[in-house]
């Protein structure tokens, strides 16, 4: 199994990979779920609405407990990350998901058995990096919006305590860039390693269950870290 996603075909120079295909399938599933809840939304919830309300309620109260009145703009991001990642993580557990091979001009290069038609999108660094960038950039955007540009800059560049705060600010600035790597590689590494482990153990049921657990936990971790970083960055710096 190669680290990079397998290219199935190209459209006007855009490489349609197996992860892009799965991302689109997950999009369709999410949109179908959203519209089926939206259409049947009522004061007496059905099973699906009840399940969505439970998840939403959990994330809303968890965010409110930590972020307080900033919950209104933080929790939609947290929940969106969770829903998007968990669907992308768990879709690979559909039986036969990665067994279907695709042979094409692009796939054939160096792959005599073709490439898998489907592959978990979170095992593609392009997706995990995209999510990390969105998470970090939105955190900084809300930081500027809610604390003001002066407070935002003061968080990284301050001459208080004889320049000691400047050193702390520099470390914090570096940690902000590190977030791109930690966010993206944590998710990518866990799911990609799980893929390999499942392949090696021939989908041994214990490993299967463990990887499902990892898929849920990683979605939760990404969402919770986003919540924590957004909350910290939207606090006024002292």
């Amino acid at each position, binding site marked *: 199994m190669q680290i990079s996603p397998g290219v199935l075909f190209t459209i006007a120079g855009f490489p349609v990979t197996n992860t892009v295909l799965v991302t689109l399938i997950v999009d369709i599933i999410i949109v179908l779920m959203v519209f089926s809840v939206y259409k049947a939304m*009522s004061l007496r919830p059905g099973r699906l609405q009840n399940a969505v309300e439970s998840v939403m309620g959990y994330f809303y109260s968890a965010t409110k407990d930590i972020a307080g009145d900033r919950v209104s703009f933080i929790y939609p991001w947290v929940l969106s990350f969770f829903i998007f990642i968990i669907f992308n993580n768990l879709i690979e557990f559909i039986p036969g998901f990665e067994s279907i091979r695709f042979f094409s001009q692009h796939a054939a290069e160096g792959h005599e058995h073709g490439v898998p038609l489907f592959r978990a999108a979170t095992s593609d660094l392009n997706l995990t990096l995209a*999510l990390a960038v969105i998470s970090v950039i939105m955190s900084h955007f809300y930081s500027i919006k809610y604390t003001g540009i002066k407070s935002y800059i003061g968080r990284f560049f301050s001459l208080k305590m004889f320049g000691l705060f400047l050193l702390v600010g520099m470390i914090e600035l570096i940690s902000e860039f590190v977030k791109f790597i930690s966010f993206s590689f944590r998710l990518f590494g866990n799911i990609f390693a799980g893929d390999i482990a499942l392949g090696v153990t021939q989908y041994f049921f214990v490993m299967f269950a463990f990887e499902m657990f990892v898929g849920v936990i990683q979605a939760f971790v990404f969402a919770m870290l986003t919540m924590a970083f957004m909350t910290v960055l939207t606090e006024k710096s002292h």
Partner: protein
Amino acid sequence: MEEILNIFGLETSLFLFQVINFLIVAFILKKFLYNPLMKKLDERKNKIEKGLKDAEDAGIALENAAQERQKILAGAKADADAFAVSAKAALDETKEKFTADAKNRSQQIIEEAKQKASAEFENMNKQIGAMSVEIAGKVISKTLEGLFTEDEKQKVTARALEKIKKGDYEKSAN
């Protein structure tokens, strides 16, 4: 660096696709799931709160109604007691009045009866006296027959009768 990027399959077009894709999904989720669902949750919360408040109000109203009922019942009982007391007093008064009237009337009837009986008795005495005189006259006349002449007989009889009329009859009547 480029080699590392190639190993991981990082490509600008794929990266941008994933960014745009996620933003669209997040927008759809926010617009069609979170906002309407939050609205529904608020609506439900308000409805539940209103229901609880209505139930509380109804409880208070019920309690007030029970108190009012108790108050009305107590008032009615007091009125009934007062009415019973006044009715009893009126009844006693009426009873006393009727008893006194009856007593007076019976006294009057007794008096009248006594007077009537007395008058009757007197009348009877008079009649009996008259009858006695008449009988006595006849007895005397019959007794004196043959002993005296008719003229003497008449004189003696008249004198005896006169005597009877004057003295003995009245004494015996008392």
